C-alpha cells in the first residue's frame, strides 16, 4: 500500500463553493436572462478549471485535503481530492459546462417557466456532486448526498404537471429512503470503528468483523447508495424521473445523481470495506449478482420502451451496473474499467439525452415510433446519436469499447468467464434497442417535410461536442484529462499492486 502524500489546499472547497456562490448571483439577476446565464457558465468554467488544477497532484498521488471543522465528535467536515474524486469531479464539472450551454438553448427554445429556479438548483446540484466527489469521510459524503437529493427535487418536478409531481414524490421516496439507510450504515460503521474516513484499501480492514456484522452492514450500504445507482430492485424512480426537463435527465440522471450513487458504491466497497473484507465475506459476489440482474433486466426492459427518454433511462440503469459489476469483480483491471465507464458512459449517455432533448424541443416528439425520417431533418443530432449508441453497445472505436474491454479483461483475470458472456449479451441487447432508433430516423420515410432544418446551435454544439469527446476518448483515452492514468492511479491506491 503506497501512502499518498497529503497536503492542505482549499481548492477542493473552492471547487465545491463556486457554483454555490453563483446561486445568489443567478437569483439576483433573475430579470436579465443573459447575465443570469453568464453566471451559470462562468461558474461552470471556473469550477472546471479549479478541478483541473487538482489533476496533476492527483496523478502524482498527492492528495489535496481541506479540513473545516468537526461536525460530530471525531468526524470533521473534510474534503480531499484523491484520484477517484478528481476523476468523478472532472467528469461532472466538465459536462456541466456543456449542459449549461445546452440548457440555455433548451429552456429558451421551450420558453420554460421559472428558469431562474432551474438554473439556481442546477448550480446547487453541481456543488453537491463535487462535494460528493471530494468528500473525505462518510459524514461529509452523506451531507452532500442528501443535499443533492433535495436539490434535485425541484428540478424533477420542474414542469409542475401532475406527472412531474408524481415523479418528484417517487424520486423523494426512493432517495430519502436510501439516504436513511446510508445514515444507519454510517452510524453502524462509526460504532464499529469510531472513524468514518475514506481510506484507500478499506477503513474496516484489520477489524475483526464477523459475517453477522459485515453482511447486514454491506446490505445497508447498498440500500443506501444503491438507490441512486439504481440497482435493480431500487431502480424504478429513474424512468419516472424522466418527467424532468431533458438537460436535467442528461446531467443528473446520466451523470451527477446516478453516478454519485455508483461513486458511493466504489467508496463503500473500496474505501470503507476494502477489497480484502469484500472478498473474505463474499460481499463482492452480492454486488455481482445485483449487477448482472440489473444489466440483463434493464437492457430487456429498455427494449420495451417506446418513449425515447424512458428507453435511455433503462439503458442508463443497465450501464450503471456495468460499473457496479466492475467493482464487484475485485480486480484492478476491472476497477479501471469501472472508473473509465463512469466517464465514458457519461459522455455517451449525455449525448443521447441531448439528442432526445433536441428532438423534443425542435419537433416536439418523444416517442421512438414517431421518429421516422427525422435523420434528414436533424442530421447532426442523429449523427451524434448514432456515434453514442455505437459506443454504448461497446463497439470500437468509440470509448464505450475501452471501458468494456477492461471490464471483460478484469473478469477474465479473475476467472469469471460467465461475466464476459453477460457483457457480450448486454452489448447485443444494446444494439437491439438502439438500432431501431437509428434505423427509423435515417432509413424510413417520415411524413415530416424537410423544410425544417437542424435545431438551435446552442443545443447542437454541445451534443456534437460530447459525441466527439466519446470518439476521441475511444481513440486516445489519455488525452486531455489523462483519464486512464488517473484511473490507474486510483486503483493503485486501492489494490496497492503495480500498474496493469
Amino acid at each position: 500500500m503506497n501512502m499518498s502524500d497529503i497536503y492542505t489546499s482549499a481548492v477542493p472547497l473552492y471547487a465545491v463553493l463556486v457554483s454555490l456562490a453563483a446561486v445568489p448571483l443567478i437569483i439576483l439577476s433573475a430579470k436579465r436572462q443573459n447575465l443570469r446565464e453568464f453566471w451559470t457558465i462562468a461558474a461552470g468554467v471556473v469550477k472546471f478549471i479549479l478541478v483541473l488544477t487538482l489533476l496533476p497532484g492527483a496523478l502524482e498521488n498527492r492528495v489535496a485535503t481541506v479540513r473545516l471543522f468537526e461536525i460530530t465528535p471525531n468526524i470533521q467536515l473534510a474534503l480531499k481530492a484523491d484520484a477517484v474524486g478528481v476523476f468523478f469531479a472532472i467528469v461532472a464539472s466538465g459536462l456541466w459546462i456543456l449542459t449549461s450551454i445546452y440548457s440555455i438553448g433548451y429552456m429558451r427554445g421551450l420558453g420554460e417557466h421559472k428558469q431562474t429556479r432551474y438554473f439556481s438548483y442546477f448550480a446547487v446540484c453541481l456543488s453537491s456532486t463535487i462535494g460528493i466527489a471530494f468528500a473525505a469521510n462518510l459524514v461529509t459524503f452523506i451531507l452532500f448526498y442528501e443535499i443533492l437529493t433535495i436539490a434535485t427535487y425541484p428540478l424533477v418536478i420542474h414542469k409542475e404537471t401532475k406527472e412531474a409531481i408524481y415523479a418528484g414524490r417517487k424520486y423523494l421516496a426512493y432517495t430519502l429512503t436510501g439516504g436513511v439507510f446510508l445514515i444507519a450504515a454510517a452510524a453502524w460503521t462509526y460504532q464499529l470503528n469510531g472513524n468514518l474516513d475514506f481510506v484507500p484499501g478499506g477503513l474496516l480492514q484489520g477489524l475483526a468483523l464477523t459475517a453477522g456484522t459485515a453482511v447486514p452492514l454491506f446490505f445497508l450500504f447498498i440500500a443506501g447508495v444503491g438507490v441512486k445507482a439504481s440497482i435493480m430492485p431500487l431502480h424504478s424512480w429513474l424512468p419516472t424521473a424522466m418527467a424532468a426537463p431533458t438537460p436535467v435527465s442528461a446531467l443528473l440522471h446520466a451523470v451527477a445523481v446516478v453516478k454519485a450513487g455508483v461513486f458511493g458504491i466504489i467508496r463503500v466497497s473500496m474505501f470503507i470495506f476494502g477489497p480484502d473484507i469484500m472478498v473474505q465475506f463474499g460481499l463482492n459476489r452480492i454486488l455481482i449478482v445485483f449487477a448482472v440482474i440489473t444489466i440483463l433486466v434493464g437492457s430487456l426492459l429498455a427494449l420495451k420502451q417506446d418513449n425515447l427518454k424512458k428507453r435511455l433511462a433503462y439503458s442508463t440503469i443497465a450501464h450503471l451496473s456495468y460499473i457496479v459489476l466492475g467493482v464487484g469483480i475485485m480486480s484492478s483491471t476491472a476497477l479501471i474499467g469501472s472508473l473509465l465507464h463512469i466517464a465514458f458512459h457519461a459522455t455517451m449517455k449525455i449525448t443521447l439525452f441531448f439528442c432526445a432533448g433536441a428532438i423534443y424541443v425542435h419537433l416536439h416528439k418523444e416517442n421512438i415510433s414517431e421518429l421516422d425520417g427525422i435523420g434528414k431533418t436533424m442530421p447532426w443530432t442523429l449523427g451524434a446519436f448514432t456515434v453514442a449508441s455505437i459506443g454504448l453497445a461497446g463497439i470500437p472505436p468509440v470509448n464505450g469499447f475501452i471501458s468494456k474491454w477492461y471490464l471483460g479483461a478484469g473478469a477474465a483475470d479473475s476467472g469469471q468467464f460467465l461475466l464476459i458472456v453477460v457483457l457480450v449479451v448486454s452489448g447485443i441487447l444494446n444494439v437491439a434497442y438502439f438500432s431501431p432508433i437509428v434505423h427509423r430516423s435515417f432509413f424510413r420515410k417520415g411524413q415530416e417535410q424537410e423544410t425544417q432544418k437542424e435545431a438551435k446551435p446552442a443545443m447542437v454544439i454541445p451534443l456534437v461536442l460530447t459525441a466527439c469527446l466519446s470518439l476521441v476518448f475511444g481513440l486516445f483515452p489519455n488525452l486531455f484529462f489523462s483519464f486512464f492514468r488517473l484511473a490507474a492511479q486510483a486503483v493503485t491506491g486501492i489494490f496497492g499492486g503495480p500498474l496493469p
Partner: protein
Amino acid sequence: MIQNNAPALVPLIFLFAGIIIPLAALKLRSSAYFIALGATLASTIVSISNVIFVLDSGPVRYFFGGWPPPIGIEYVLDPLSAFLTAVINGITLIVLIHAGKIVEKEIQEHRRVPYYALVMLFLCGCNGIILTGDFFNLYVFLEISSLALYGMVAVGDKKAPISAFRYLIMGTVGGGFYLLGVGFLYVHTGSLNMADIKEILPVLGTNPVVIVALSLMVLGFGIKMALFPLHGWLPDAYTHAPSASSSIMAPIGVKIGAYGILRILLFVFGIKFVTQVFPIAQILTWFSAAGIIYGSIMAISQDEMKRMLAYSSISQIGYIGLGIGLANPYGIIGAVLHILNHGLMKACLFLVAGNFRMKLGHSNIKNFNDTLRKKMPWTTAAFAAGALAMVGIPPTVGFFSKWYLALGTIENKSWILLAVILLSSLLNAVYFFRIIEKIYFRSPSSKQEEKEHQSRKGTEVAASMLIPTLVLAGALFIFGLLNTIIVKGVLMKVLPPGM
C-alpha cells in the same frame, strides 16, 4: 451578589415579572409585553452566563434560606440544568418577540395583561423544575407551569376551554401520580432531596416501594410530556391554543416532562437500576418507539397545520424518550440535543403557522397554494427549512439528533429501534413534502379561491414576526453545523456519572 445567587436568578426573574405585570398594568397596560420581554432577555443572558460559569467551575448548589440540602431546598446548577435553561430561555425570547404582534391579533386587549403574566409564571415553573434539586419543590413548580399552561391554552379559540379542561384533568392525574411517587419515595427513604436519595437508594436495596415510586413518577411525567399512549391531551391543546401559546408550549412545554424523566431515571435512580434491576428504561424506549410511529402516521392524515405539528410533536417526543431509555451516552446526548433541536424546529414551524394565521386567518393545509409563496416568500422558505430539519436532512439540526440516536440504538444493538428512527424520518418526509408541494407547486384550484387570495392584500408579515422566524430557520442550519461544539463542550459533561 448576582454571582452568588446566579442559580436561583432565572426563576426568580420570571417570578418577579409575573408578580409585577398585574401591578404595572394598573398604570399602563401596554407595559406588560415589554416587562415580559425584558424579563426573558435578562434571564436568557443570565442562563447563558450560567452555562459558561458551570462549564468553568463545575456544578453549583444553592441553598434557599441558607439551609443545607436535606433540611432545606436546594437548586442545583449542573451542566444539564444550565444547558436546558439556556435552551428554554433562548427559544422563548425569540418566540416572545414574535408573539407581540400575534397576541395583539388573537387576544383581546384586557386579557393581555394576565396572559403575559401567565407566560412569565409558566417560564418560572419550567426553569424551576429544571434547576431544582428537591422532589417536592419540583412538584410545586410543575403545577405552576402546568396551571399557567392550562390558562394559556384556554384563552385560544372557541373550543380551547374544552381542550384545556381535558388537559387539566390529564395533567392533574399526572401531577397526582408524580406526587404519589414522591410520597412512596419519601416513606421509603425519608428524604426529598435528589442527591440525598441517590445516596440512600443503593443502601436500601430494591423494594416494591421504590419500583412503584419510580413507575408512578415516570407515568406522571409521561403524561406531562405526552408520551404515547398518554398523549391524549396534546393535539387538541396545541390546535386550539392561541398561536403565541402553542409556539411557546410546543418547543418547551413537553420537554419539561422529558427532562423530569431523564433526571429521575438516570441521575437519581441510576443507570444500573433502571436497566437491570427494574427495566423501566427499556419499557420507555418501546413506548417511545410506538409513539414515534403513531405520531408520524397521525400527522400524515391531518388537515390543520397546527394539529399536524402537534402529532409530529408526539413523534418527536418519542425520540427524546427513546434516547433517554437507551441509557447509553449516545442516547442521552441524542436526547438532550434533540430537546434543543426539536425546540428550534418546532418553534420555527409554529411561528410559520402563526404567520400564516396572521395573514390568511387560517392554517388549513387544504387551502394552501402557491399564492402563499408569492405573498410570503420568506415565511415559506422558513417553513421549508423547518421541514428539511424535521425530515433530518444534513446539515440541519434534525440530522444530528437522529445521528446520535442511531448511534445509541446501534450501541444497544436494538435494530428495531434503529428502524423506527429511520422509518419515522421517512414518514416525516411524507407529511412535510405534502405541504411543500402545496405551497410551492399548487396553483389555486378554483376561481373563487384565487379571488379570495387576491382579496387578502398584503404581503409578508411584519418584521417583528418575520425576523424571529428567519432567525430560527437560520439557527436550524447553524446549530446543525456547529453541533460538535455543543456536544463536546456541554453535552459530554451532561452525562450522568459513571458514563
